[in-house]
């Protein structure tokens, strides 16, 4: 009799979803209003920018690379938009320019990484310094976005109001659209599958005739776009830009991706998992805010422990599947 076998590749993402529900359950049991839909919706509103950034990070990690420039690009685009609006530009032009810069910057990073076979870690590290500094060149001070028609339109007219103070803001819709597009891209398109092939074994992918260079550069370009879009969302969310924003956000994004069940060495995992990774991070923060007694630095420790647990699980799974393929 053959037992029902749960596919090994679904284990990490199931664990992520399980962790999410456990944390959510803990919240509901501990606090009276934790289960209210408003808390759940706010989870998305507060973490939309992180989620979008995590999508790009997830794709890059799937190729076996890493992108450390995420937080800096968010800070740069948000301050760029705020500055341009403050100097009288049209907000739409500012947003478009920010996105184009993000795309070009991602492309540049991908080009350097692929064409000169520089370590992704180093290139995006330098990129992080560079773009953070560029943010300070734009403005060293925080700039607010006041009375801009486009931002007001996004704020007031594109929000889905469910009543009782529950508002699904436009940034959440943007996040979900990007997420669905990324899932479709990674699962159903040729380029998306190439990402997995490269992440699993770059040499084998090259030998199979997969356009490794093009795919890698494209992935970093997408990551740059996602970061820039996250910056736009962040500017909309805060209605301000600050070059000091999001210091270390790249690590949150990486942690979300790892907790989302993606193998950091590449090739294994789902973009979909990053959603739950981000939600788990957000839930932990919400829990700590609800409690009020626990200090916020516990967030980092808990996140670190979660990352560790997932790394161990991934390691175990990799070993088991290796042992299986050997025994066959």
């Amino acid at each position, binding site marked *: 009799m053959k037992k029902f076998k749960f596919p090994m590749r679904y284990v990490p993402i199931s664990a992520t979803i399980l962790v999410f529900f456990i944390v959510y359950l803990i919240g509901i049991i501990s606090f009276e209003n934790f289960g209210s839909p408003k808390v759940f919706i706010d989870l998305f509103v507060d973490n939309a920018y992180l989620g979008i950034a995590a999508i790009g990070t997830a794709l890059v990690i799937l190729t076996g690379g*890493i992108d450390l420039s995420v937080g800096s690009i968010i800070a740069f685009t948000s301050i760029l938009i705020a500055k341009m609006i403050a100097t009288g530009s049209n907000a739409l032009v500012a947003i478009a320019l920010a996105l184009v810069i993000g795309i070009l910057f991602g492309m540049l990073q991908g080009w*350097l990484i692929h*064409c*000169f*076979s*520089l*370590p992704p*870690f*180093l*290139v995006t*590290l*330098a*990129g*992080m*310094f*560079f773009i*953070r*500094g*560029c943010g*300070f*060149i734009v403005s*060293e001070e925080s700039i607010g976005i006041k009375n801009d028609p486009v931002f007001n339109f996004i704020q007031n007219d594109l929000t889905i109001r469910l009543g009782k103070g529950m508002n699904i803001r436009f940034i959440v819709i943007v996040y979900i659209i990007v997420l669905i597009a990324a899932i479709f891209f990674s699962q159903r398109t040729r380029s998306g599958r190439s990402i997995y092939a490269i992440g699993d074994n770059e040499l084998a992918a090259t030998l199979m005739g997969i356009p490794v260079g093009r795919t890698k550069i494209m992935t970093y370009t997408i990551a740059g776009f996602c970061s820039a879009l996250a910056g736009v969302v962040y500017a909309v969310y805060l209605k301000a830009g600050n*070059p*000091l924003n999001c*210091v*270390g956000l790249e*690590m949150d994004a*990486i*942690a979300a991706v*790892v907790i989302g069940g993606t193998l*950091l*060495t590449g090739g294994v995992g789902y973009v979909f998992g990053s959603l739950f990774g981000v939600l788990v991070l957000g839930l932990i923060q919400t829990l700590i805010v609800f409690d009020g007694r626990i*200090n916020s*630095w*516990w*967030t*980092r*420790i808990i*996140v*670190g*422990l979660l*990352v*560790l647990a997932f*790394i*161990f699980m991934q*390691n175990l799974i990799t070993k088991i599947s290796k042992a299986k393929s050997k025994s066959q």
Partner: protein
Amino acid sequence: MNKSSNKFRHLVWPLVSLALLLLFNAIFTDNFFKIEVKKQDSAQAVQTPSVPTESPQPGTSWITPENYETVSDSTETAAQTVKDSAGQQAVPEKKDGKGVSIFGYYLYGTPIDILNQGSKVMVLAIGMTLVIATGGIDISVGAVMAIAGAIAALLISMLDAGNCIGAGMGPSVYWIIPVIAALVLATLAGFWNGMLVAGFGIQPMVATLVLMVAGRGVAQLITDGQIITFDNPGLVFLCNGHALFLPFSVWIVIAMYVIACLLTRKTAFGLFIESVGNNERASRYAGIEARRIKWLTYVICGFCAGVAGLLAASNIKCADSNNAGLYLELDAILATVIGGTSMAGGRFFLSGSLVGAILIQTLTTTMYMKNVSPAIVAVPKAMVVIIVCLLQSPVFRAKVLSIFASKAAKGGVQ
């Protein structure tokens, strides 16, 4: 490429970059190379500095001979404040600057200042070089620095309050306790990293990510989220005092460098590291305890991070868990890579890493002296890093060569 006959070949590019930078400074910055030997005024005589008549530009009027007494104190703090405003909350506390000086003489000047400020990255780079040589990486050193600084500051504040064993020894002696505690804790952190990497076989980048994420939380746990300040003379001396003409921190760097060199070049340890970095499995078959070697490099790296954490805390006389050592792991890695150590592992150059660290610090200091905002310093830094990496990349060299020598291009550089 042929096996380099020149022992110092790896140092060429970093040294050339450094020389260019220094040349730039020699031409465009006044008094850059002016090093003053000044006798310490133990009687703390009335300071009557001739205030410079021209309006003091923060960059160029650094430590000029006329105003060194006041300016060196105030601008050092100011420079620190400026530097820290990039991400750290500086403590605008006037340094007393009267550390113990053995012969009563100080060397003052920008080059000395570069060495002093760069000491943290230099110390980190020594440990990082060994880790990278095994093919690993340690991105948690910044967080470990924060932990080390936090425990040192906590213990010294407890000792000052008399709440800890050893408080009876008096403040001139008991500062040893926090130093040892910080080093032990940092070494333990390195042990933890080593355990994950060598013991459990997790990828180094991933394994050290855990401590990088959680480490600052731990540091804040230690300090209870506070920024603990201290003014114990012994602890402050580490990064602000002078001994034998040079800042004490420079002596720490020299001592650690000499120890590391002896350890790696006079024993088989260095060879083992390179062997493991080249091919771990082959080394294991050859009878080298590859795991133990890797583990040990992480422990050493943790120890170095502890020293750097103490220096960082000592420099600003406080432990700031959020910002101590922020991004310094990146500086340390950059210093190592600039110094010619390959990220893939297998060969390492401690001297190169030190030169790399000095290069980074010189660049930073040059920017400050040219009145560049500290936040923007990151831009040229990043460009230098990319350029140096490109120069070291064999692919880039081949491509450039193929452009210059058309014959080579026909040879088919892919």
